[in-house]
Each structure stands twice: as structure tokens, then as C-alpha cells.
């Protein structure tokens, strides 16, 4: 094996087990959880200001959630056997139980909530659209065309309830990923009760930042004005969440440095050498401290709209990059040192291999294609559909006569 090793590693440890695809997975599910929490801010906590992003956040969450299993499938030695996780799940395995958390979240929360929120449009469009879209809408109606006031009110109540359950479900979705790492006693870089909590908060940070960026981008692409009240509110929530996230991570670090247990010297050396760029420079300085400073500054200074937008865009990009770096540092960092604490290995990332950089990039781009498709099918921008308006008029007329 041509992998450079420093010091001593157990012979089977030299090759990394989990690649960039496994870095991608918590990153993607994090975006999902975060986007959903932002959406639920409007629905459950009645934060009116963020309403313009509600549907966009849901569709974003769905796009990413559909892509989430793909890096896992590419990584598996036998993807054709992955159904085994649902057929014979090992109840003591966090990974197996996560399969059901994912399924629940996809089916029971996200799809259901989107369906209930869009049902009226779906029914109307199933009657007025043409081509493949018409077929799609007709399937989505499940054969029922009832959009009476009462049925819509029932949908609204049910949707509220789903969102309510959805919030802890979103926490569970990403907290579980944290637990998958945090419960491995063999690995001191991962093993920590703080892991699920840190993962949840960093997920929220990345999701909120992603939706904020998407909102700004789509508004610009459509030539629409950005609702600054909405944007300011999102940025505010991003700041608060970020502060909590940063505090948790610093708490973990502080404790480690102070207690300096057996693994500490090895981990400390690793951070100072192999992980210096990705952890200290990219994740902490550029990806956390800088965006927090920028966002905090925007809360204090009253700058012009156009300046604030630019600052938010910058902060958002840095945030997303910083959270990706955090996933990298957790997953890859946890495999760079030996469990004997006597050595270090190197991650040799391929490019056009099954678990290389190219498929990773492709998988990160894919959700945007899916989002583009979903936006076409289920427009999130609440413009009145001319056909729908006509239909309503027709219905009203038939009721009167």
C-alpha cells in the first residue's frame, strides 16, 4: 500500500474506511434538517417574516433528502443487499434504526407535509395542466378532487400537527447521524455524548444558511425583489443558532484540552498537523468565527439593503463551507490517527473512482436539479395560477346557480 504512514498504525487501519461520500451524507441530511426547521419556524412558531421561504425550504429539504441515500449506496460493498437493513434490522445498531428514522421522516413528515400544503394546487393543476405534468398531478391527487373549504381546513390542521411532530423528527434525523458516530467507544475523536447535539445544531446552521442563499439566488433569477424583513429574520435565526453551535463545539474542545486523557496527545498532534487547514483555518476561522462576526455586525449596524444582502450572501457561503469542513474533520479526522495513539495515516481521495471526488461533486449538484424539477412541478412562489383562478370562478358560479 502506497499510503504514507507516520509512526505506528495497526496494519488494517492504514486504509481509510469511510470516504468523502460518508462526509457528504451527514452534510446533506444536515441541510435537510436545517431547511425543515426554518420552514417550521413559520408554521409552528408563527414567525410571519419567514413565510416567503416556507415552501422553498420544504422543497429544498425534499431534494436533498432524496439524494441522501445515494452516497451511502455508492459506498457500500454490496448495495444490492441494502434492503437487508429494512428486512432484518439489527435493533442494537444505530445505523439500522436510522434507516427507519429516515423512512419515517421522508414519508411521514416531509412528503406528507408537502402534499397537504400543495393539495389544492395539485387538484386544480390536475384539471388544467397538460402533458406529463397532468399525469403527475393526477397521480398525486390519489383520485380525490375534493378541495372544499372544510377539507382544506382539515389539511391545514393535519399539516400543523405534522410540522409539530416534524420538528423533533428533524432533530432525530440528524441527531441520529451524530449518534452513529458518537456511540463508537473505540474512536475517541467521535465518542462523545455531545456529538448528536453538535450535529443537530450544525445541521440547523447549514440548513438555514442554505435556504437563505437559495432564496436570494432564486429571487435574483426570477427578477423578484427580496423581502428584506424575511432575510433579516433568517439571518438573525442563523446567528443565534450559530452561537449555540459554536459554544457547544468549543465546550467539547475545552474539556478535551483540560482533561488531556490518553488519546489527547495523539489527537492534538493530529489537529496541529494533518487537520490544521481544514479544522482551524477553514472550519473555525473562515467558516464559523467570520460568519458569526459578520452576522452579529449586521444586527448592530444599520447598513443599506444592498450591503446587507452582500454580507448575508458572503456569510451564508462561508457558513455552508464551514459546516462541510466540520463534517470532513469529524469523518476523515476520526480515521487519520491510529487507535494505538502512536501514528497517523493519510487520506488518499480518488477522483473518478466510485468513492472519489467526482461522484461527490455530482451528488452535491444533483439536489439542485431535483429542486429545479420540483419547482417546476410544485411552484413555491404562491402566484395565482390563471387557470386556477378561472376554475374557482367557475365553481363559485355553479354554486350560486
Amino acid at each position, binding site marked *: 500500500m502506497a499510503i504514507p504512514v507516520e509512526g*505506528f498504525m495497526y496494519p488494517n487501519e492504514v486504509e481509510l474506511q469511510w470516504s468523502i461520500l460518508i462526509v457528504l451524507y451527514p452534510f446533506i441530511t444536515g441541510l435537510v434538517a436545517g431547511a425543515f426547521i426554518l420552514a417550521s419556524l413559520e408554521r409552528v412558531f408563527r414567525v410571519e417574516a419567514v413565510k416567503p421561504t416556507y415552501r422553498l425550504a420544504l422543497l429544498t429539504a425534499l431534494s436533498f433528502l432524496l439524494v441522501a441515500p445515494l452516497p451511502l449506496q455508492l459506498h457500500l460493498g*454490496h448495495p444490492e*443487499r441494502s434492503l437487508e437493513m429494512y428486512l432484518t434490522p439489527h435493533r442494537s445498531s444505530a445505523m439500522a434504526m436510522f434507516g427507519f428514522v429516515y423512512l419515517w421522516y421522508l414519508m411521514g413528515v416531509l412528503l406528507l407535509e408537502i402534499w397537504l400544503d400543495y393539495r389544492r394546487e395539485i387538484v386544480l393543476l390536475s384539471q388544467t395542466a397538460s402533458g406529463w405534468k397532468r399525469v403527475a398531478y393526477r397521480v398525486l391527487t390519489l383520485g380525490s378532487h375534493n378541495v372544499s373549504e372544510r377539507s382544506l381546513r382539515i389539511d391545514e390542521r393535519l399539516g400543523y400537527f405534522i410540522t409539530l411532530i416534524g420538528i423533533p423528527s428533524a432533530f432525530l434525523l440528524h441527531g441520529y447521524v451524530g449518534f452513529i458516530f458518537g456511540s463508537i467507544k473505540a*474512536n475517541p475523536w467521535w465518542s462523545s455524548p455531545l456529538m448528536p447535539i453538535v450535529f443537530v445544531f450544525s445541521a440547523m446552521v447549514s440548513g438555514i444558511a442554505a435556504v437563505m442563499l437559495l432564496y436570494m439566488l432564486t429571487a435574483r433569477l426570477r427578477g423578484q425583489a427580496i423581502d428584506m424583513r424575511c432575510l433579516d429574520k433568517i439571518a438573525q435565526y442563523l446567528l443565534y443558532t450559530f452561537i449555540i453551535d459554536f459554544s457547544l463545539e468549543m465546550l467539547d474542545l475545552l474539556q478535551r484540552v483540560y482533561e488531556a486523557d490518553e488519546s489527547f496527545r495523539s489527537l492534538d498532534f493530529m489537529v496541529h498537523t494533518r487537520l490544521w487547514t481544514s479544522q482551524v483555518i477553514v472550519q473555525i476561522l473562515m467558516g464559523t468565527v467570520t460568519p458569526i462576526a459578520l452576522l452579529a455586525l449586521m444586527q448592530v449596524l444599520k447598513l443599506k439593503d444592498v450591503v446587507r444582502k452582500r454580507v448575508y450572501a458572503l456569510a451564508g457561503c462561508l457558513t455552508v463551507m464551514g459546516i462541510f469542513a466540520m463534517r470532513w474533520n469529524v469523518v476523515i479526522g476520526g480515521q487519520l490517527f491510529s*487507535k494505538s495513539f502512536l501514528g497517523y495515516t493519510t487520506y488518499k481521495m480518488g477522483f473518478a473512482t466510485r468513492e472519489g471526488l467526482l461522484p461527490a461533486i455530482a451528488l452535491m449538484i444533483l439536489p439542485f436539479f431535483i429542486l429545479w424539477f420540483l419547482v417546476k412541478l410544485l411552484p413555491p412562489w404562491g402566484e395565482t395560477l390563471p387557470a386556477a383562478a378561472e376554475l374557482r370562478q367557475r365553481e363559485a358560479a355553479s354554486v350560486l346557480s
Partner: protein
Amino acid sequence: MDISRRRMLVLLPAAAVAWKFVLAGTPEASPNFKLTEHWWGMLIDIPKCIGCGSCVRACAEENDVPEGYYRTWIERYHVTDWKIEKPEVESPDGGKNGFPPHADDGGKNFFVPKLCNHCADSPCTQVCPVGATFISPDGVVLVDKSYCLGCRYCVQACPYGCRFINPKTNTAEKCSLCYHRISKGLTTACCEVCPTGARQLADLKNPKDPIHEFLKTHTVQVLKPHMATGAKVFYNGMDGSVR
């Protein structure tokens, strides 16, 4: 001297009976091999290990272990004076072809053979999402390679670094305590070829097994006891520097 040509399979009588059932595909039904009558482990006597690498080679041959991966391996420790938390350790190709000569610099040297500890509370079986790795009723942690997904969670969960992914089958693999041998009444390949008796198979449930007497009269340890894995590979004369 001429060996008269006898074409017969000469195995231990017990193994011969078991062989019938093995050929029928149901070795667990063999009358002299009751799964629950055994609880397998191993005893490793560190002062006896000479680092010859015979065990690593034999294991590789017996189990078709691919190059660059190790079901068992040997580590050479060099400890200077009181610095037992900072030993120098090496394992060139797992110790398969022995170790290069070293000058005597007054430090302490010894060899530590390592393998799967067949933990009674194994963290690897705990995390397997589908039940592809498990502990058999007779205490051997095995991998069902036709069921394994290759997710590598077990490899991450093992504190001892004894697992790897076989590049040919894309499934998890590790020492199986030569289950196909011990279930026929033979010993493991590594114990068979060890010239000094540093490695010995132990049946903890057998009252006549010499390990019981050995454990009573010697100072033994397991690797990483703080992990509470219930490891069943016992090390005699293990220094505190062993990681």
C-alpha cells in the same frame, strides 16, 4: 525411508466423525460437536513469542487472506526505560516475514501477536446493521460474507483494529479463530505452527483445558480492558506499554 502409499484421510477420530456432517453441509449437527459445549478463546504467552511470523503466514494460507490485509499480525515493541506510554512499535507487513535485525540499545524488546479478541460483549456485532457479524453459540465472532453489506461500521467499531474489508468480496473480514478447523477438533492454523507454543487455543468451557490452571497461576491481561469488550484472548506477561 519409504512411506507406504496409503490413500486415506487420517484425522483425529472425533474430527473424522465431524467430517461426515461437514460434507453433508450440517456440521453443527455433528454429535461430537455441540455448539454450546464450547466457549472459545486463546492464550498468548508474550515471553515465548520470537516474532518468526509463522502464524501470520499460516493464517494467510489457511484463510486466503489477501496481500496487505491481516487477520493476525505481530507487533514489535521497543520500550526505553520508564517511558511506557511512548513505546516504539513496528509491524512490517504484519510481521509476516519476521522482523529486521535491531541493534541492542539497552531498551526492552518483545513481540505481541494480535488477532480478533472474539469479545463476549463485542462492539462490532453491536453495530452491524443487518446481523452479518455475530457471535456464535460457542463464542466465536464470525462474519456471514453472503449477508454483509460492506458498510464498514464494524471496522470502525473494533477498538483493536482487527477488521478489514476484503477487496475481492467487498465484505468485512477478520480472524474467524479458524472456525472450520476448531469445529473439526483441530487447532487454529496459527497455534498449529507456532514453534514455541506462544499461541494456544483455549476452550474456556472445557474444565480440562490447561488454560484454567494457567490463568490461576500467571498474571494475565486482555487488551484495552477499559473498553469492557469481554475480550477472550488472554496475554501472559504483557507489558503496560502494549497498545
